C-alpha cells in the first residue's frame, strides 16, 4: 500500500540547512494500521508531510521515495499529487478548529472538498455529506452543515474533519496526533471512530502519536522514531514485548500503566 524508502528531507533556516528526517524507511501494508511514535521533534510530522507533499516552502524532500499504490509520491507532479490527496489518502490533523475554515459554512467546505475531485450536484452532495456526518455520529447533521466551525465542540469538529477526510473513500488514512488538542473525555471516542471508519472501509491507517498506549490498542505495526531517524520497526506485539533498541525500551518504561491515564512523560524533559 504505502512503502516509504530512504526518505530524507531538509529545511532551510537562518542557521543553514537542517536535515529534519534522514533515511526513513517503513511500510504500511494494505488493511493494516501502523503507528509512528516518538517525542516532539523526532520527525514524525515531517515524515507524513514529506509523503503528502505538504512541507512548507522552505522545506524539501532531498532523497528516497514514498510509493503509494505503485506510484512514487515524491517524484509525482504536484497536480497529480493533489489528485491523490483527499481522494486516495485522507488526512486528519491535530487541531480540528485549526483544520476547518472559520468563515466558510461546513457545507461549503464539504462542497469544496467534493468538487476538488469529482463533479456532483448540490443535492447529491448534501445527501452524501449528511450520510457521512451520520456515520461519524454527528447529531443533527443538517444543522451542522448550515453552521460554522466555531459553533461546534472540539469533539464534534474533529468528527466533521474525519467525515471530510473520508468523503472520497480513501484507501489510506493518515492521522497526525488526532486527539492531542481534544478533551481527555472525547479522545477515546475519536480514536474509536477513526478505527471503525478504517476497518469498515478496509482502509489502511498511518497514525502519528506520542502515546504508546494508543499504538498498542489500535495498531498492528509500530515505527519508532528519534531525531529524524527510524530506530525500530516491527509488529506491535514483537516490539513491545521484545524491544531491540534502547530508546524503545526507555519509551516503554515511561508508559504509565493505564493507557488513558495521561500522556507519555517526555524522556528528555521536553514538552511532549
Amino acid at each position: 500500500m504505502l512503502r516509504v524508502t530512504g526518505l530524507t528531507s531538509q529545511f532551510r533556516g537562518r542557521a543553514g540547512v537542517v536535515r529534519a528526517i534522514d533515511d526513513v524507511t517503513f511500510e504500511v501494508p494494505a488493511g493494516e494500521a501502523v503507528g509512528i511514535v516518538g517525542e516532539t521533534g523526532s520527525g514524525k510530522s515531517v515524515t507524513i508531510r514529506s509523503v503528502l507533499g505538504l512541507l512548507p516552502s522552505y522545506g524539501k524532500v532531498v532523497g528516497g521515495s514514498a510509493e503509494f499504490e505503485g506510484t512514487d509520491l515524491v517524484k509525482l507532479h504536484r497536480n497529480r499529487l493533489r489528485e491523490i490527496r483527499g481522494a486516495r489518502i485522507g488526512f486528519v490533523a491535530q487541531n480540528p478548529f485549526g483544520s476547518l475554515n472559520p468563515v466558510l459554512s461546513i457545507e461549503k467546505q464539504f462542497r469544496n472538498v467534493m468538487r476538488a475531485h469529482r463533479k456532483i450536484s448540490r443535492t447529491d452532495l448534501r445527501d452524501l455529506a449528511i450520510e457521512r456526518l451520520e456515520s461519524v455520529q454527528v447529531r443533527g447533521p443538517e444543522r451542522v452543515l448550515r453552521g460554522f466551525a466555531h459553533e461546534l465542540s472540539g469533539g464534534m469538529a474533529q468528527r466533521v474533519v474525519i467525515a471530510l477526510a473520508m468523503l472520497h473513500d480513501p484507501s489510506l488514512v493518515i492521522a497526525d496526533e488526532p486527539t492531542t488538542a481534544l478533551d481527555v473525555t472525547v479522545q477515546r471516542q475519536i480514536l474509536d471512530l477513526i478505527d471503525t471508519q478504517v476497518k469498515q472501509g478496509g482502509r489502511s491507517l498511518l497514525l502519528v502519536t506520542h502515546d504508546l498506549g494508543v499504538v498498542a490498542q489500535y495498531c498492528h505495526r509500530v515505527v519508532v522514531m528519534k531525531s529524524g531517524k527510524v530506530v525500530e520497526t516491527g509488529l506491535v506485539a514483537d516490539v513491545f514485548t521484545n524491544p531491540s533498541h534502547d530508546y524503545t525500551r526507555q519509551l516503554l518504561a515511561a508508559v504509565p500503566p493505564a493507557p488513558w491515564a495521561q500522556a507519555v512523560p517526555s524522556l528528555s524533559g521536553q514538552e511532549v
Partner: protein
Amino acid sequence: MTTAEAAQVAVKEKRRRPVLRYVLKRVAIVPISLFILGSVSFFLVFLIPGDPAITILGDFATKEQIAHVNSQLGLDKPLMERYFSFWANLLQGDLGTSFFTNEPILHELGKFLPNTIELVFFALIFAITLGMTIGVIGAYFARRMPDRLMSGITSVLQSVPDFFLALVGIYVFFFLLGWAPAPIGRLPITSGSADGTPFLIFNSLFTGNWDRLGEAVSHAALPVMSLGLVYASYFAKTARGSMGTALTTPQVEFARACGLRERTVVYYAFAASRTTVITYIAILFGSLLGGAAIVERVFNWRGMGQWALDGVLKVDVPIIQGFVVTAGLLTLTLFLLLDLVVLFLDPRVSYE
C-alpha cells in the same frame, strides 16, 4: 427566578438574535458620536487667538465688517445661547454661510462633496484591488523572488507623498506622453462646468452619456491613481501580513491535504484574512480623506477637501465647521457600513 436562571434567559435572548443586537448596538453609538462631533466643530472657533473677527478680516477691516462677522460667529451673544442655536441650526441642516462667498455651506457641500466621494471611492477600490493583489502574491511566494519584488514595490510606494506622485504623474502622462488631460478639474474646459452634475462618473454611466463618461474618466485617472497607488502600499502591507499568517495555518494545510486546488486554497486563506483588510479601511479612511484634499488641490478637482483647505487658509469658520461635521458624518457612515460588511463576511463576530 434565581439570578442564575435570569442570566441563562439573558444568554438565550442574546443567542437568539445576535446579529440584530449587534447592529442595533452599533447604530446606537451614532447619535453620541454626532453630538461630540458637533460640539468639537463649535468649539474650534475658540482656538483662534486674539479677536477672531480681526484675524479673519485682517487689520484693515471696517467696523461694520467686524460687527457682521461677530454676529455671524455669534460672538455678540452669550456662550450657551450660541451653543444652543448652533445645534438648533445644525439639526435643521443649516450650517451657516461662508464669510467670503456668502453661499450657504449646505449648498456648497452639495456641489463639492459628490466630487470627493467619487474620488475617494475609486481611489479606495483601486488601492484595495492593487494592494491586495500585491500582498497576496507576496504572501503566496513568501521569502522568494516575487515576495521580494512585491515588498520592494510596497516600500517605494510607501515613501512617496501623494501630492508628489500626482505631480510626477502630470509631468509624465500629461506633458511628456500626452495621454492624460490637463489637470484642470473634472472635465475639459470646452465641456463646461461639472458643478451642475453631481456624481459625474456615476451620473454619466447611468444616463448613458458615453462621451461625457469618457472625458470624466480620463480626467479622473491621474488623481485616482496618485491617491490609490500610495494607499495601495498600506493595503499591500496588511494583506501580506494577514495572508502570510493565514497561509501557514493548519487550516490551509488541511485544505491542501484534502486535495483542494491551489486557487481554492488561496481563497480559503483569503477568506480567513479579508476581514482584517476590510477593518483596515476604517483605519486608513481618515488619512485618505486628508490625502484626497491635497490631491484635489493639485488637480483642481473641486472637491470638499480642496474647498475646506481654501476655507481654512482664509479662516472661513463656517466652512471649517461644515467640513468637520461632514467629514465626521462620512467617517461614521463608512464605519457603520464596514462593520456590517465584516458582520456579513465573518460569522464569528456576532458571537463576541
